[in-house]
C-alpha cells in the first residue's frame, strides 16, 4: 500500500491511497484503502489521512474519518487524534501506519509496526525519507 497527503499554499488538503491488498487474498476481499473514511479521507476542517496496515481493523475503526471527526467535533489536535485512533486499532488486534497533513501545516506519521516506508517534504525545505522504526 502507498499513500500521500498534502496541504497546499491555499490551506486545502487532499489524500490518496493505492494498494494491491494482501498476498493470497480470496473471495473479492477488499481492505481499507479504497473505502472513503477507513483508509483515505480529507476534510479542510480537520486534515487529510492515508492509512496502511491490516485493513480489516482499519475498516472497523473507521480510522481516517474518526481522526478527522475527533479534530472537528472534539477539538483534539491531529497528533492526539492519530495516537488515540491508532491505539484503538491496536486494541482491536490490528497493526499499521497513518500519515496526516493538516490545514495549518501539521504533518505527521505514526505506526505500530517495526517499520514503515515514509517520507515528508515542506516548503521550508524540510525533507525526510525513512524505512525502519528507529530512524
Amino acid at each position: 500500500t502507498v499513500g500521500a497527503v498534502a496541504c497546499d499554499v491555499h490551506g486545502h488538503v487532499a489524500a490518496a491511497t493505492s494498494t494491491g491488498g494482501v498476498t493470497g487474498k480470496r473471495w473479492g476481499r477488499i481492505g481499507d484503502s479504497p473505502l472513503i473514511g477507513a483508509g483515505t479521507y480529507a476534510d479542510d476542517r480537520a486534515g487529510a489521512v492515508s492509512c496502511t496496515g491490516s485493513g480489516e481493523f482499519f475498516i472497523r475503526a473507521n480510522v481516517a474519518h474518526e481522526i478527522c471527526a475527533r479534530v472537528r467535533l472534539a477539538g483534539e489536535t491531529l497528533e492526539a487524534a492519530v495516537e488515540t485512533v491508532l491505539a484503538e486499532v491496536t486494541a482491536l488486534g490490528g497493526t499499521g501506519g497513518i500519515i496526516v497533513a493538516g490545514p495549518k501545516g501539521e504533518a505527521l506519521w505514526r505506526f505500530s509496526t517495526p517499520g514503515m516506508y515514509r517520507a515528508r517534504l515542506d516548503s521550508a525545505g524540510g525533507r525526510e525519507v525513512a524505512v525502519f522504526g528507529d530512524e
Partner: protein
Amino acid sequence: MSWTLILHGGAGQMTRDTVSQAQAEGARAALGRALDAGAAVLAADGAALDAVEAAVRVLEDDPHFNSGRGAALTHAGVAELDAAIMDGRNRNAGAVAGVTATRNPVSLARAVMANSPHVLLSGAGADAFSVEQGCEPATQDWLVLPERRAQLDEMLEGGGAFDVDMKYG
C-alpha cells in the same frame, strides 16, 4: 502560506533483518522521486489534490511497493488493485476496488470522482469505466512481478491460509 507533503509506502514487519539493503535503498529512492513529483505541483502553488495524485502515481509505477506494478497477488495470481482519492475542499472523493487493467489506479479513482456521479466503482465495471475514460491501460504482465509470484507460491505451498498479517511490503 507554506505547503506540506507526506508519503507512505506501506507499514509492516520491516526490520534490517527482513528488508534487504537493495530493497531499502530502492524504496528510499522511489520515495524521493515521489516527493519531487508532488513538490513540483505544490511549489508552483498547485492544488493538494494534484500533488497527492502525482506522488502516488510515482509509487504505483515503482516495483518496490505493494501497489500498481509490483502489487501483491490474489490467491489466483492476479493483480487486483484498489485506490482512493479525496479533496478536502469539498469532500469530493473517488475510489476503485478490484481493478486489473489500469496502470495508475489512483488516476482512475480521480476519474471516478471527476467524471461519474459515483464515489466507488469495482471490478469489471471499473475496468470498463477505465477504458471509457481513456486511462492508461496495463496488462497483468506489466503489473505482476516474478517476486510477487514467488511470494504467492510460497504462501500457497504453506497451505495458503489467509493471514491478515501476511503482508509483503
